[in-house]
């Protein structure tokens, strides 16, 4: 019915064209499935929940270069003025901005002598007791900070309580544990009063991506980070007002990098965005080129076999048989290419994983890509096959 045997015989006779197509399809499949695998892992990374109210938070830095200014007092005043702006719900100084790839980190342990206990590297963020709410975080276990937890100013009064991300608690005390336990760093000891399920650190892409320790201490430094929480709909407006408002309070300073937390995050993930865009461009171009290739080769095959087709038609083959012939031929070649390509794709995925620590290639991606390629190849052979079917039988009797 499908005339597979004669098709294969014909293919074996002029191998060059078929081999080229198989080669093209195989390489395309290998590239596309690996590229898609990388793209999907990067998209997962970009869209992963960070725990923060990314659309509401505005973050920036204030460099107070005049050392004579009483910064603590100045920032208190500033926060009051900021909160008066229409749409602002909260404003406070923080020691570093999450997701921004810059800030402070330390090693915390579950034992006073860190060499004897478990240790974990973690980002830390120091801010006043309203920080959890300001960041838009949700506490999954324990309680929020209270005003009396908070200390202000010098090292001597280090807070005695902390809220940590689930990852920190898990790593130090085991899965699901950690509440009301103590963590240590240097001479400091703090009790975990709350645990936040999802909270990314300043370096979401690193080994300590999920590790954050919140410390209720308010400081004011020369190089001070500030966050403002606004209603998402009014945020763009608030962003514009921050610099002039603060400079009106005190001119001897510079307000830097006023931007939404989502923008800060996008900048941290710039490399991944670039990779996604490059790979998508590659995939689209490849699809076009391969479709063109299939189209072109079928055209070529048909023009070469015009007489043969005419003869078949003259001998009684129907148009549909000719049409089917080319579709089946092409599908056979594509199937073969896809088989070779799947092996190549998986081999390549293994190599990439070994060399560049790329996540493993998922079989399903190879499968889906293969299916799409099959469909694509049938579509690109459709028009040439139709043309072949329309070759008149009289061609066969001419010019022999």
């Amino acid at each position, binding site marked *: 019915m499908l005339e597979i045997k004669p098709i294969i015989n014909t293919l074996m006779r002029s191998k060059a064209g078929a081999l080229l197509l198989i080669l*093209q399809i195989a390489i395309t499949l290998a590239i596309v499935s690996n590229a898609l695998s990388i793209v999907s892992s990067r998209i997962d990374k970009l869209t992963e929940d960070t725990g923060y109210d990314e659309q509401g938070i505005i973050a920036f830095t204030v460099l107070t270069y*005049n*050392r*004579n200014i009483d910064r603590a007092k100045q920032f208190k005043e500033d926060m009051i003025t900021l909160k008066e702006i229409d749409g602002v719900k909260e404003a406070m100084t923080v020691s570093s901005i999450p997701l921004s790839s810059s800030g402070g980190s330390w090693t915390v342990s579950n034992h006073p002598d860190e060499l004897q206990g478990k240790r974990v590297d973690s980002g830390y963020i120091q801010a006043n007791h309203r920080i959890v709410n300001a960041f838009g975080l949700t506490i999954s276990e324990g309680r929020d900070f209270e005003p009396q937890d908070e200390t202000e100013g010098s090292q001597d009064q280090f807070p005695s309580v902390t809220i940590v991300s689930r990852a920190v608690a898990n790593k130090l005390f085991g899965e699901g544990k950690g509440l009301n336990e103590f963590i240590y760093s240097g001479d400091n000891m703090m009790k975990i009063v709350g645990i936040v399920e999802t909270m990314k650190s300043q370096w979401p892409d690193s080994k300590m991506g999920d590790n954050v320790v919140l410390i209720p201490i308010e400081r004011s430094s020369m190089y001070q980070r500030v966050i403002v929480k606004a209603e998402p709909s009014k945020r763009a407006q608030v962003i514009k007002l921050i610099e002039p408002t603060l400079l009106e309070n005190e001119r001897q300073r510079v307000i830097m990098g006023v931007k939404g937390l989502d923008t800060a995050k996008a900048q941290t993930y710039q*490399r991944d965005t670039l990779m996604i865009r490059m790979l998508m*461009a590659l995939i689209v*171009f490849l699809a076009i080129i*391969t479709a063109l290739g299939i189209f*072109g080769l079928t055209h070529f095959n048909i023009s070469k076999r015009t007489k043969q087709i005419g003869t078949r038609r003259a001998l009684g083959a129907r148009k549909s048989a000719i049409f089917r012939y080319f579709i089946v031929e092409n599908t056979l070649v594509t199937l073969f290419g896809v088989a070779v390509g799947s092996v190549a794709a998986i081999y390549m995925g293994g190599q990439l994983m070994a060399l560049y620590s790329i996540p493993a290639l998922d079989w399903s991606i190879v499968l889906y890509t293969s299916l799409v390629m099959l469909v694509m190849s049938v579509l690109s052979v459709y028009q040439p096959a139709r043309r072949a079917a329309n070759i008149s039988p009289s061609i066969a009797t001419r010019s022999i």
Partner: protein
Amino acid sequence: MLVHYLDLAWRNIKLTPLISCLMVVAIGIGIGVTMTSLSVYHMMSSDPIPQKSSQLHAVQLQTMDEGQTWNTSDDVPTQLTYQDAKFLMENSPLTHRVAMMKSGAAVHLDSPDSVPFIEDVRITGRSFFSMFDLSFLHGGAWSEMQSEQAAPVAVIGEALAQRLFQRTDVLGESIYLDERKYEVIGVTAAWQPAIKFYDVNNGPFQRAEQLFIPFSHIEAYELHSWGNTNSWKNEEIRGREQFLQSEMVWLQFWVQIDSENALKNYQQFLLDYMAQQQKLGRFNRKQLAYNIKPVNEWLEYNHVIDPDNKILVGLSFMFLAVCLANILGMLLAKFLKRAPDAGVRRALGASKKQIFFQHLVEVALLGLLGCLVGILLAQVGLVGIRETMSVYVGIAKMDWTMLLLSPIIAISACLLAGLFPAWVVCKTSPATHLKVQ
């Protein structure tokens, strides 16, 4: 003969405009994609200071206790402590040595309408300028004396001078860094190595600083690093003095070594210094370790090339292979369709070799046209990269090497694809084609 072949090739291309266009587009896309990723790779892996890269060396000391680890392949920290950097700066058998770090300041003029802006500052020694080949438009570096006295003097880049004063001859003018008044004593010509090799801490493709002040200001004015400050030891640090004496690492150190002998001397000097420090209780290790790495080795050690980029280069060459397979198919079709022409030419006395070359010339011409399309596409791609990733501004571009490499890759790739079709055409016997005419 070549001219005749080119003429024939051009006629043939015009005869089959659609398939020729398709081929040019296929080559163009292939070359465009390949050259985009290859250009970035080329810039990332290029020597940022070719005339001196073998003389300039980054110095590292293994200050950490036995058993401590670092994120380098040999566990040696990439930066130095302040006390080590200061010692190596002040006592050295080499004339060209420099300790440095990145800082920053609010820069402004002493006038009410001058709006302060943030500018990165390189705090460094006076040898910096000669070591890293900066040239002065006006003035020069600070003197040894000015450095010792922590004189408030600064060297600025030409662009910064333009921004502040709208001219470059600004010697003797005053600028403010934060609340400190500085006198401009030198203006350097624009300086921007493709890779910020001398300090890769905050990303190797950051812009170079264009504001330089003496190293002694760190102590004199309590200046802080805007780069990385890392510690490996739990130390009680109270106050500036203790911070400067701590084991925290936050300074880069470079030397210029001109001979094998000087290198040996310097290695001995480092070992002597560490041995002497060991007696004071530092460098608690069985084996003293240090690194003196020349520029290119240093860049490799710091993994300056993004692995993503290597993947992209690999994928784009595979992509080019797909394009080639594609072109091969189309060429085969095109040439076989025109086999009768070749038959006539053969019958009229052309040799197989001549037919073969005539077809290759045609393929090469297609390659050249495709290359032009490809270069245009690559420019678009590079603009896209610069837009997506702002720090790649300095490296997402095509230099002359890459521009010249494009036609070479395009034409040789096309010739490779054309070999088989050209051979198929030239070996067909003239008789078969003549019969059907």
